[in-house]
């Protein structure tokens, strides 16, 4: 893999206009990645999902070079109907469109950051890989007091032009005081066997609100890793919703630092997977100061021989008195071959806190099915009704009504 990486790296660099210093930095990250390689199960964070093996088994040889010189045609039929929105379109890893038609132009700033690589607050090998190979990274700044009128949808599209490729994406967001942003990540893949490596960084200033909805719904054979780093100042709120369903393998990581008083973080997730898919959500909520709050709810429905993993950690340092942390994960295993693994973790150094977690996994409740069937539903209907209700609970947590309806329609959950 080493020669391949080196070769692809040289090719990538050739097509970019970079300063000598930036090349040096990229080289540094490349060497880091070559040293560490893809994470494997020997690392605690990857204990339940051995990425190295998964890539080997599903993709085989990866190519890290992508030709970004030619543009891709933007397929407008793929856009979401019935909801006016701003767009960012990635096709095969290339940014094709950034469009904020509904917003005041002077309130949003888009900074092309391809020249200065900002260091990520993460020293995993995947962040090294990302830093070495991202061709362009943008920073999107929402100015003081501005609240976006329409949500922003980021379309992550890949098509059959690429296979066995590694695609690296990176975006930075900065939300100034009293601003707010609704962001939907929509994955639409018609490609197969690629490895997507996505890093987002959010900087939330005082009183700002971020709502991020990640929807991976459409069936595809890709392997995805997505990392969100969220820094929160005083009074800020972040809400993350993850629908983890379509890809062959998908791992979502949320790292949230509650740096300012009265800041709060909400993470809600749904696994709805079948076949032999393997999905994971890993969250780390760091309560670093007084009076912060976090709430996490993860529900899974597992069919066939699918596997879901939830690793959630609440960290409370010794200054973070009056922390309120809550975490709940529930799973329904529908098939004898399905598997659910959880590691809900609490690490607490302050005494005046209220932290709890719960985790439950098991089969559908036979009594409930019996109840419904005795009222005239057949087995299949009863089952669907119960699963619907089980998942609806999480979707109902979405605070934005427009987006909630959109997601409900998308996954076909009925009320």
């Amino acid at each position, binding site marked *: 893999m080493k020669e391949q990486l080196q070769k692809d790296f040289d090719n990538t660099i050739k097509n970019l206009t970079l300063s000598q210093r930036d090349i040096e930095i990229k080289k540094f990250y490349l060497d880091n990645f070559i040293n560490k390689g893809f994470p494997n199960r020997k690392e*605690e964070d990857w204990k339940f999902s051995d990425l190295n093996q998964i890539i080997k088994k599903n993709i085989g040889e990866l190519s890290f070079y992508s030709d970004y010189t030619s543009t891709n045609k933007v397929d407008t039929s793929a856009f979401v109907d019935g909801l006016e929105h701003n767009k960012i379109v990635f096709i095969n890893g290339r940014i094709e469109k950034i469009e904020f038609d509904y917003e005041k132009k002077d309130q949003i700033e888009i900074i092309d950051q391809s020249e200065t690589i900002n260091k990520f607050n993460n020293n995993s090998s995947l962040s090294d890989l990302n830093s070495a190979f991202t061709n362009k990274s943008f920073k999107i700044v929402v100015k003081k007091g501005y609240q976006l009128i329409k949500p922003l949808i980021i379309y992550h599209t890949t098509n059959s032009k690429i296979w066995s490729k590694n695609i690296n994406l990176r975006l930075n967001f900065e939300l100034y005081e009293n601003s707010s942003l609704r962001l939907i990540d929509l994955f639409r893949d018609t490609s197969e066997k690629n490895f997507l490596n996505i890093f987002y960084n959010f900087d939330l200033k005082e009183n700002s609100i971020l709502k991020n909805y990640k929807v991976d719904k459409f069936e595809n054979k890709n392997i995805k890793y997505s990392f969100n780093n969220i820094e929160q100042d005083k009074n800020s709120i972040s809400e993350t919703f993850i629908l983890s369903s379509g890809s062959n393998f998908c791992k979502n990581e949320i790292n949230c630092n509650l740096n300012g008083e009265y800041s709060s973080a909400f993470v809600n997730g749904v696994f709805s997977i079948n076949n032999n898919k393997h999905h994971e959500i890993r969250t780390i909520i760091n309560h670093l100061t007084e009076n912060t709050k976090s709430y996490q709810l993860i529900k899974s429905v597992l069919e066939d021989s699918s596997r879901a993993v939830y690793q959630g950690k609440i960290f409370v340092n*010794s200054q973070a*008195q009056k922390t309120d942390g809550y975490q709940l994960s529930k*799973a329904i*295993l*529908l*098939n*004898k*071959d*399905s*598997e*659910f*693994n*959880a*590691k*809900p*973790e*609490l*690490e*607490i*150094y*302050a*005494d*005046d*806190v*209220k*932290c*709890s*977690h*719960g*985790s*439950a*996994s*098991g*089969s559908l409740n036979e009594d409930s099915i019996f109840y419904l069937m005795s009222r005239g539903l057949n087995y299949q209907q009863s089952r669907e009704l119960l699963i619907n209700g089980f998942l609806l609970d999480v979707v109902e947590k979405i605070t934005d009504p427009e987006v909630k309806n959109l997601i409900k329609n998308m996954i076909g959950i009925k009320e």
Partner: protein
Amino acid sequence: MDNRQKEIDNLKDYKYGFTTDIENTKAPRGLNKDVIKFISNIKKEPQWMLDFRLKAYDRFKQLKEPDWQKPKYPKIDFQDLYYYSAPKSMKDKPKNLDDLDPKLLETYKKLGIPLQEQKRLNGIAVDAVFDSVSVATTFREELTKQGIIFCPISEAIQNHPELVKKYLGSVIPLTDHFFATLNSAVFTDGSFAYIPEGVRCPMELSTYFRINASNTGQFERTLIVADKGSYVSYLEGCTAPMRDENQLHAANVELVALDDAEIKYSTVQNWYPGDKDGKGGIYNFVTKRGLCKGKNSKISWTQVETGSAITWKYPSCILKGDNSVGEFYSIAITNNHQKADTGTKMIHLGKNTKSKIISKGISAGHSDMTYRGLVDISPKAANSNNYTQCDSLLMGNKCGAHTVPYIKNKNSESNIAHEATTSKISEEQLHYCQQRGLSAEEAVGLIVNGFCKEVLQQLPMEFAVEAQKLVGISLEGSVG
């Protein structure tokens, strides 16, 4: 009130911190094949036992000391330890208690463990282990009548080799982790109990461990086999003198329960925890594992952990037989600079297996406490159930309480439920108690006892009283 204060003052210090001045026979310092041969030789062991040890030692040399645990400790120099230490007077085994060195008798009397049978009111058979040897086992005759074998393991190796051969290492194999393998190579003594088919053991069996000599590691091995349809309740207590340096305690405990058998294993662990500044104390790195081999068998662990500088252990149950049951009840209390990383593993292999975990952690002072547990339901363990509850109480903002459960469900017909909470004693509760005339300290004691009650109830009577007191003492001075 004066009397009560005096009593508290008396209890405040670690009262088992004395040393017995007694002549010792020691193995040469360090760890090598010769030392292992020395131990085996002094115990007059048969060749197969020596082979067992040497095989473990070969394996041990290939292993690396694990370092994933939460409490870090300075590297142990395994060549700087004595692996065998015994009171000189024990060289030729005394025939009965009257021949026992009076100093030893005195020691156990001071510890509150009278070895003279006639003095005992409560029917508990005790095996007393002093450093590397078992010094006395009481009530033997009465047990023999029922066919129960209860003796030091070194004696069992001589007298019941067929049983020892069959079960030793069957739950904790030679190839297990670092400390367990070290134990297999150098274990010195411990207790062996065999309960024959259909016998309900008429009294509690008990081992009392005492580390006395300095620079010694205590490596004892306990093996309990409950044959079909039998029942036994086993108690374990431990203390050590106060010393400035840290001492290693790496025991292996193996339990085997055959069809319909039940083993109840209770521990009150009160090793020397080190002084207020975290100097000295015992490193308690123990491997405890029970195998529910037969169907309908049951193993239940109850532990009260108050001592040790560092506790690092996970009493586990392997639920292999169909319908078998595993239970784990634990109270762990850390104060001053103590550290604990403890919990359990429940490995469900058989059908209809059930397990229950109740863990209560209390940390105060500068201490750090981690619950780390595994619940693993394998694809074949249909219709299995687990319930886990771990609660932590924090006192003060210098201490830490952590929960790290690993939950693996590979069977769709099985259910796992896990709950954990972390909080402090609520002001309202304290206020309520104080309003009714209790001092702050008494109020905390009362609330903590209530917090622990679920676990304390599981202990046999005599132990429960002692444990309740221990809970109070361990938290002394942590309020306010």
